[in-house]
């Protein structure tokens, strides 16, 4: 168990929620060109683990480090390099898909509208760009959220159940995007309860009891 200096490392993380011991000493390593598939039944702390890795939740015990330094000491810089997609699409219903992207991605890096449009095109929702998020279907919202991840140009992707609400074509598209991200040197941590069929350096962490 040695911290990888070129990626993400989680060492013996413990989290309690009230009386519930949600994460019991979870450890993982994730370097560039790698994909880690976190699986396990409901209530085993998959989302909690993701929130710990993001730095949103500080674990009671254990250490999360990025490029060899603890994320607690470089939180904002670290968070600038990651793209997180929670299990809800996190879109403002009153804003259009494009505006949603502009306000979310614009805080991470300077981005042009054309770039954002091309990201929406890559996830197959270019037609939705100027529609308010409230009229989009669940699958379309998921694709917009994926376009946001793409547009952030982040080296670390943290995705919580990215395949929910996607049809077969959407799932294939998602797998393709993950594959090209990892092949281009990125790292991805994907929480999914079913098997992933992606042809990259993929490992699996089962949080089951």
């Amino acid at each position, binding site marked *: 168990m040695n911290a990888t200096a070129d990626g993400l490392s989680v060492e013996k993380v413990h989290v309690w929620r009230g009386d519930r011991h949600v994460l019991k000493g979870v450890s993982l390593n994730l370097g560039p060109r790698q994909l880690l598939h976190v699986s396990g039944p409901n209530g085993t702390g998959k989302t909690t683990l993701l929130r710990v890795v993001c730095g*949103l939740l500080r674990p009671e015990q254990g250490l999360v480090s990025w490029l060899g330094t603890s994320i607690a000491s470089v939180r*904002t810089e670290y968070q600038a390099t990651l793209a*997180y997609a929670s299990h809800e699409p996190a*879109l403002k219903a009153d804003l259009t898909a494009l505006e949603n992207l502009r*306000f979310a991605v614009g*805080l991470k*890096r*300077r981005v042009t509208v054309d770039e954002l449009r091309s990201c929406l095109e890559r996830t197959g929702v270019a037609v939705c760009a100027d529609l308010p998020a409230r009229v989009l279907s669940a699958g379309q919202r998921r694709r917009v959220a994926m376009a946001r991840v793409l547009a952030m140009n982040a080296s670390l992707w943290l995705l919580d159940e990215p395949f929910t609400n996607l049809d077969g074509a959407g799932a294939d598209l998602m797998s393709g995007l993950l594959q090209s991200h990892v092949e281009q040197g990125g790292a991805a941590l994907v929480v999914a309860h079913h098997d992933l069929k992606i042809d990259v350096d993929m490992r699996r962490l089962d949080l089951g009891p």
Partner: protein
Amino acid sequence: MNVGALEAFGLVVRRELCLSFRRPDQLLQPLVFFLIVTTLFPLGLSLQLSLLRDMAPGVLWVAALLSSLLSLDALFKSDADDGTLEQLALSGQGLTLIVVAKTFAHWLVTGAALVLVSPIVGTALGIPGSAFATMMLSLGLGTLTLSWLGAIGAGLTVGLRRGNVLLSLIVLPLAMPLLIFGAGATDRAISGVSATGALYFLAALCVFTCTLAPFAATVALRITLE
């Protein structure tokens, strides 16, 4: 390629303003509430203009505090409910900057709007035009300070289901100095006495709160985001 703090601040303020103007009803509700409450007082009291004028500063200020508080509940809640607050927190800009921008934008659409309609209410309550400048200045300082106090309260109650009542319960005691100095300043301006003392106090409170409250509100949000 990195986004500077000022640019990020502007972007978040634009986002908040954009969201508010997409929902004009929510923008108007606190203002209408303000007007209704100030109408209730004269109806509940006997219609003696002299009595009304004596009560005016208190009525105006209580109504202003309550209507600003009404909208503060939504400051972080709507973003927390749809998950965008997490995205903002992870934007790599530091949560304090986000909190500052959001609170400032919130004040622009509630507090500043309230200051602009206050002359109408003031006229109805019999406040002379000569006191309007002081009244508006004190309301501006007071609502800005309240927005900051409210940001702490909103951060603390964001994850709670019935957070609205609790928010009032924890913010109103903290807001009492505002009421005292704000109504005091307005009162003095009505009776033609110099109100600078009270205004200085209000300004001092405003500066003090603006300096410390962003950090407290950030800590509050971090606690409830976990």
